[in-house]
């Protein structure tokens, strides 16, 4: 299985994207902004369609549209976190523009619109060449470094914005940077592995990590770890059962982790006894994943 170059590329890209999604997703769950991640994948879809429609490289237009929309969402949110209704309205309108672009594609000569839509929505992790896998890994690494740099202030800003502002943490700027990182992950994952896998890798591993522990850095490591495990296990399932598409298998494993998470969490809690209101701060962290600036 490892000998197949397509599987190798999928492992490289999938691992990198899973780590980036885990880190960004942990904050998305903490800030209750999973819907924003979902929105980004729709923006990426419109971006890809726009590129095909006007005849430029869809990857360029995909990143451009996603970043512009991320900044727009941040601007619409103003001083507070952008709310779900605004995100919903943005999704519908940007999707409407995507539909308009698709109608141009359909009347043009570059393949059926259904095929474009299906590729952008579902992608395929087992169809990457070496260069695409490397680009995916590099972009994911950049996003991971960015998240690690802003992790501490972003944590404070997410948990208690008022205190953070009083201590001089640039809460607004951090919110914008986070949305841009979310857009970057979404654009990256959508073009490499499809929008479906993006949501599976952002929501499920991070949600499972939040259910398992309230310690921040342990949680981030767990989210990344569960994501990577899901990618590996899912790819393995897809290779031994060729009928199952890899993105379905990966999403299935990640979702199983999310829904099974309360079971070990419950027994852990029973072992430790009732601890109420334990402060969940970086000061208490002595777990792996705490190597931070």
């Amino acid at each position, binding site marked *: 299985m490892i000998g197949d170059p397509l599987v190798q590329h999928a492992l490289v890209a999938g691992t990198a994207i899973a780590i980036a999604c885990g880190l960004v997703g942990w904050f998305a769950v903490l800030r209750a902004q999973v*819907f924003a991640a979902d929105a980004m994948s729709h923006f990426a879809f419109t971006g890809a369609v726009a590129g095909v429609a006007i005849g430029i490289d869809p990857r360029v237009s995909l990143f451009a549209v996603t970043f512009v929309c991320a900044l727009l969402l941040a601007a619409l949110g103003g001083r507070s976190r952008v709310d779900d209704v605004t995100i919903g309205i943005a999704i519908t309108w940007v999707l409407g523009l995507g539909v308009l672009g698709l109608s141009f594609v359909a009347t043009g000569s570059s393949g059926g619109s259904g095929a474009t839509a299906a590729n952008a929505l579902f992608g395929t992790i087992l169809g990457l060449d070496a260069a695409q896998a490397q680009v995916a890994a590099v972009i994911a690494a950049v996003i991971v470094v960015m998240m690690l740099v802003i992790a501490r202030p972003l944590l404070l800003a997410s948990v208690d914005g008022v205190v953070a502002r009083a201590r001089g943490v640039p809460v607004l700027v951090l919110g914008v940077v986070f949305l841009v990182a979310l857009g970057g992950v979404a654009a990256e994952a959508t073009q490499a592995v499809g929008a479906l896998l993006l949501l*599976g890798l952002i929501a499920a591993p991070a949600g499972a990590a939040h259910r398992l522990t309230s310690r921040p850095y342990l949680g981030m490591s767990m989210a990344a770890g569960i994501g990577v495990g899901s990618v590996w296990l899912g790819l393995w399932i897809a290779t031994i059962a060729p009928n199952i598409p890899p993105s379905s298998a990966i999403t299935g494993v990640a979702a199983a982790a999310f829904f099974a998470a309360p079971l070990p969490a419950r027994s852990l809690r029973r072992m430790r006894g009732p601890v109420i209101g334990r402060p969940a701060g970086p000061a208490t962290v002595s777990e792996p994943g705490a190597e931070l600036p």
Partner: protein
Amino acid sequence: MSNPSLSWNLVWDLRELLAYPFMVQALAAGTIAAILSGVLGWYMVLRRQTFAGHTLSTMSFPGAAAGMLVALPAALGYYVACVIAALAMARRPDAHDGGGGIQSARIGTIQAVGLAAGFLLLALSRSILGGLDDLLFGSFLGITPMQVWTLAIVAIVVLGILAVIGRPLLFVSLDPEAAYALGVPVRALETTFLLMLALTVAATTQITGALLVFALLVSPPAAALRLAARPIPSLLLSVGCAVAVIWCALVAAYFTTYPLGFYTTTFAFGFYLAAVGAQQLMRARTRPVTA
């Protein structure tokens, strides 16, 4: 008549619009769908369940794929998939799950599982999903009288149930703790509402498509809630706005070459922007009085 064009004679335009049976059916189905989503969407926006509504609207994909695998009509698959997703979302949150973050992760996971299941079913049935465009973006041209009747029956059932639970649901939506303390069955009402939303989405999807059902659900109610604070006027405004959106979109799509989905979302967005503008104007006018 082969090449529709808009003249300045409104009566003539209307006669041309209604000349084809498919347009009459499209207008009837669109109006019912708009009334339904105007009401349900109003509660959805009020309850901040936009993400849940959006997730329900993606469930038509696994529904259609499952219907194809077992050779049943796609419409049945829509209803089954939407109801299953609604029940999964309505599960009582774990006491240790904390705030809204885990709930949003749960909804996102359910959506991912639904899409993954749809993709898997599609691969298992070894066929290409016929009319992916129609599934995603909808088509008004193929609506049968049978579908219009089904939609009307679903609308009557959903609106009837909502008429019964409307008042307590409003209370629960605005102040869940007070409602719980006064003995209002909060959990039952929330689950019922999600089920009604699921039925609405499943019924409307067949007309607007999976990706755009959401435009009717979120934009008109968001506009209405900005303009009117009292429940009944706001609800009526939401329904009126949704009906206006779908009528404008149908007429525009009929007389031009661009897709209906684009017009639906754009008119919906336009109405929302107009509402935001009107709200700003009203605020600017009342400010000197309150200051």
